[in-house]
């Protein structure tokens, strides 16, 4: 009894620190990746800041989770996208993006893919469900 694999997209639109939404949302992604679902993650608006490398939460006295994004590819969360305009609005470039894993063969670092809002809209239209964190 096989059912079609459902496409589920996560949107990350909030800043990584200041509230717990992005951190607890990350926990959902890692759990959901273990299930039979076609997962994708899109970072946009302030959510792009979560992908900035070199974050340090020591002074805030809270547990950082930047490094956890580095296991995405290992967890088979490979469809990770970031909105170009949101990055530009916040002075970020592709060079600022953290690494979400490495290529199995070449060991080359893998980063989130920069896309335009039109591409995001097209992907959204294909989803079975979209979850906002």
């Amino acid at each position: 009894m096989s059912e079609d694999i459902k496409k589920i997209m996560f949107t990350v639109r909030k800043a990584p620190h200041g509230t717990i939404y992005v951190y607890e949302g990350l926990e959902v992604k890692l759990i959901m990746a273990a299930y039979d679902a076609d997962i994708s993650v899109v970072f946009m608006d302030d959510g792009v800041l979560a992908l900035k490398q070199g974050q340090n939460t020591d002074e805030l006295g809270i547990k950082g989770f930047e490094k956890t994004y580095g296991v995405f590819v290992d967890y088979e969360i490979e469809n990770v996208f970031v909105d170009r305009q949101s990055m530009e609005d916040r002075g970020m470039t592709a060079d600022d993006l953290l690494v979400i894993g490495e290529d199995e063969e070449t060991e080359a670092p893998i980063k989130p893919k920069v896309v335009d809002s039109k591409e995001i809209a097209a992907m959204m239209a294909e989803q079975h469900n979209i979850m906002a964190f």
Partner: protein
Amino acid sequence: MKLAVCIYEGPYNHEASDSAYHFIKAVIDKGHEIRGIFFYHDGVYNVTKLMEPPQDDRHIANRWSELGATGIDIVVCIAAAKRRGIVDDVLVDNVRISGLGQLTMMAIEADRMVTFGD
């Protein structure tokens, strides 16, 4: 249509829980099915029996419990609950604590996932 509902905010402080409740009532009235309700983030505070609001106001936890009594699966995320001191002992009847796997199943099985929160 089969819907699942996520609630991310705590009671009284935010409209999310009220909006979700009224939405669900309307959904049922229209003849649709609620696959499940999932409380996450501060949303886990919505179903503690420790709350005691003024008598002339709505009792948010009891309201969810009554909805649960109709057979709708109401799930509180264990990870979010533990972090905030919400355990089985303080839950109202007809809701249960479980894992994010339950949210996953709702997302897969429901036709639409509707989220209430910031």
